[in-house]
């Protein structure tokens, strides 16, 4: 007898449909799996057999061959346990083929026959949208986010009982995929009202959130760089429905949604440690191109603390995704793309001694400072529209200051400014292309004069000019979005842009 059960495996952020073909024939009893299974799939033989034994289901004492089609792609993960088990039951005649017609199966089996969830079930469900998908109970809500028909069961015996009609399928407490509430939020990251002073940094965060401008904070240890970066996602607007779906898929594919039963609505915040590998940052690896940190940060914030400590190769690998908004991963198993459009926020010390800043304060030799600065490639540093210096708050100047604005107040301003910017039909001002700058961000006479003066003095390059103009557009959006960008907006943009010297902690003479 032969059975063919639909299932799927994950590659990158996509599901690939797989047919699990089971052939049971006379011959020496045996159990082989062919069709490029990886170690987890080969081990599924033992799990499936144990599950049969402990639940009392009949195990055919014959020769069993499992083929995973198409045989050309490598299959990984334990999600094929359930389709293999169902295939064995059908092929051995213990279950009627009609009872599983139109069904697809994804799930891992325990030795006692219980059914466990698998990471990335959302993307697998997407690939199996044409079928009635049977998954583990814990995967039910996530799989049903696709809007397709989804069935959930706690164990292999229940799957058999429900498929054969002996017991009914209970309804899944499915969240409404469109109106799901914010989950995996980051209220724990703190409120802006807790930050005392830091007026410049607050403003920079607001501008960065409004225009999608990458932000670099330079300052000594303990100045509050991490504290501030943590508060950035709070002032970002909710994800739009399309991005929300993409982000949920990516997080599902990476196995990061196990406790989540709804679409991710809030922008993610990723803060990887600088000890991570290139694969962990970019994505890939033998485990089916798991999305990396930049994929997981899609739609949200990627925060790189201690930027200077990250290996140069990893930082340079960020440049292409920063440009294209997607990352392409090509490995032996094939090539996948993963969306990776994120707001890059980085923090670093100005120099090895960490003091830098005001003239005369730093004790590093010029050579040591230059060496430190060389660790970051110019092209990467160029991506930061905003560079600012963060200092430890000066106690005396904070005395008598009331509480600062809270996250919700700033978030409202950001949302209002983004609303005004929507007419420009780009995701954010940071993506305005050079040719449309004159149309969307025309300069008034004094603003043009100011920029020209900076360019003549050599303080501003041609590329820097475009970045300052985009930044000025965002500043103007926050001030009610006048059609023309004024001198005050340009002046603020120039201040926010900072200078390369900030990173070197040196005095510009």
């Amino acid at each position, binding site marked *: 007898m032969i059975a063919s059960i639909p299932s799927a495996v994950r590659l990158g952020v996509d599901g690939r449909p797989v047919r699990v073909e089971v052939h049971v024939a006379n011959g020496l009893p045996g159990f082989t799996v062919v069709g490029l299974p990886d170690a987890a799939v080969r081990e599924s033989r033992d799990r499936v057999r144990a599950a049969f034994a402990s639940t009392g289901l009949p195990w055919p004492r014959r020769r069993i061959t499992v083929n995973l089609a198409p045989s050309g792609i490598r299959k990984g993960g334990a999600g094929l346990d359930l389709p293999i088990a169902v295939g064995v039951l059908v092929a051995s005649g213990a279950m009627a083929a009609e009872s599983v017609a139109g069904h697809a199966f994804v799930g891992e089996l325990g030795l006692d026959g219980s059914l466990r969830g698998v990471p990335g079930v959302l993307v697998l469900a997407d690939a199996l949208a044409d079928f009635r998908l049977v998954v583990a109970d814990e995967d039910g809500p996530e799989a049903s986010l696709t809007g397709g028909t989804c069935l959930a069961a706690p164990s292999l015996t229940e799957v058999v009982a429900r498929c054969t009609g002996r017991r009914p399928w209970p309804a899944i407490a499915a969240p409404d995929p469109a109106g799901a509430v914010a989950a995996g939020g980051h209220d724990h990251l703190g409120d802006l009202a807790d930050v005392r002073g830091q007026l*410049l940094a607050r403003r920079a965060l607001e501008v960065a959130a409004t225009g999608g401008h990458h932000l670099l904070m330079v300052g000594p240890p303990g100045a509050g760089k991490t504290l501030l970066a943590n508060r950035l996602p709070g002032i970002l607007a909710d994800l739009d429905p399309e991005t929300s779906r993409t982000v949920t898929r990516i997080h599902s594919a990476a196995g990061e949604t196990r406790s989540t039963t709804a679409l991710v609505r809030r922008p993610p915040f990723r803060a990887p440690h600088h000890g991570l590998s290139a694969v962990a940052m970019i994505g890939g690896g033998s485990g089916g191109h798991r999305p990396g940190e930049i994929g997981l940060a899609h739609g949200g914030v990627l925060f790189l603390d201690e930027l200077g400590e990250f290996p140069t190769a990893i930082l340079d690998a960020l440049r292409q995704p920063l440009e294209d908004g997607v990352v392409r991963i090509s490995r032996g198993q094939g090539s996948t793309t993963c969306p990776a459009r994120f707001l890059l926020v980085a923090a670093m010390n100005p120099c090895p001694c960490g003091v830098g800043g005001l*003239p*005369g*304060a730093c004790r590093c030799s010029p050579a040591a400072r230059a060496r430190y600065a060389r660790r970051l490639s110019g092209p990467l540093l160029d991506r930061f529209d905003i560079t*600012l210096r963060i200092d430890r708050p000066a106690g005396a100047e904070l005395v008598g200051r009331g509480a600062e604005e809270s996250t919700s107040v700033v978030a409202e301003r950001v949302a209002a400014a983004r609303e005004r910017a929507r007419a420009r039909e780009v995701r954010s001002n940071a993506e305005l292309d050079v040719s449309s700058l004159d149309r969307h961000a025309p300069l008034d006479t004094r603003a043009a004069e100011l920029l020209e003066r900076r360019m003549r003095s050599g303080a501003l390059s041609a590329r820097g000019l475009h970045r300052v103009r985009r930044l000025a557009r965002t500043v103007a959006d926050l001030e009610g979005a006048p059609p023309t960008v004024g001198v005050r*907006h340009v002046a603020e943009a120039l201040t926010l842009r900072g*200078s390369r010297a900030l990173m070197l902690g040196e005095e510009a003479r």
Partner: protein
Amino acid sequence: MTPDDELACAAALVGLGGMTPVRLARLLDGHGPVTAWRAVAAGTHPADRAHRFRAEARTVEPSAVVQRYRAAKSRVLLPGRPGYPPALVGDPGAPAVLSASGDPSVLEARPAVAVVGTRSATRYGVRVASDLGRGLAEAGVVVVSGLASGIDAAAHAGALAAGPGAAPPVAVVGTGLDVVYPRENARLWAQVVDRGAVLSEAALGTPPRPRVFPARNRIIAGLSDVVVVVECHGRGGSLHTVEAAARRSIPVCAVPGAVHSPASVGTNGLLVDGCIPVRDVDDVLVALGMAGGAPTVSVPDHRAHARVDSGPSAPVDRLERVVWEAVGSEPTSIESVLLRTNLSLATLSGTADTLVRRGLLVEGAGWWSRT
């Protein structure tokens, strides 16, 4: 045994690997360079019983070494021979062999003042060092410094900016005379060679190594009649110079700085310890005994300062005034100005830009200061 042989052998000794000022002084203590060189090569020198230098000495031809000095447009100076700075004769730490580019005789019959300080100087320090360098050179005083970045470079640049007839500057460097360090001072280095002299006790080709600079500082102190520290941190190379000067009973002057400025911690500390405060070149000349010590608190000076505060170049616009006052007299970060004025960043940036354009403020990397 010609004088040339002596210079050649001395240069060859300096160039041996592992040579330090102390070892060199021991090798040449009581021996002429030629005798010492032959003894080292033969392995019979009482100060080189371990034969540390013997193997290398046998492979070196002194005349070839001196040839290299000539190619580098420099010469070897020995105590008691022409060119060796008279101030170092009898100095307890006098280098047994010096090399010089330019004309070392400029040190003869002229007073010399060391102007030294930190490499990470503030604008204030750079300005004071440059003013002192220029004023001293114009008064006929040789400015001695180390050609490092920051204060040293500013002092040399000031001395070079003095008009014709001014005293030439002299630099004492820690590297070999053919190794220009830091490279950004290459032009300054060439100008000092041109007008005055650059001295070094290191062999040609010696790279910048941390230990050569404190040793160099004792020569700076030894050459000078007065040492002026313009700016220095709590710890630093300038304090080596001060220590060396104190050991030789050479007067040490210090330029006062803001008590909050990290670059003035060392100098302010020196003043507390009793060093002579220096405001301008006249104060240094008094310390040198070259000026009468007339009262230097001059009333017009104060008026001049008052004029800066309310004169025609001061900000007139109310907003400009608020910003200018918030910046204060020291470099102030953008954050501090924001906190002090409560202005929006756009307003502050625009106003500050106007002030910069009118020459009232200077913009740095993340800070402003008054000019």
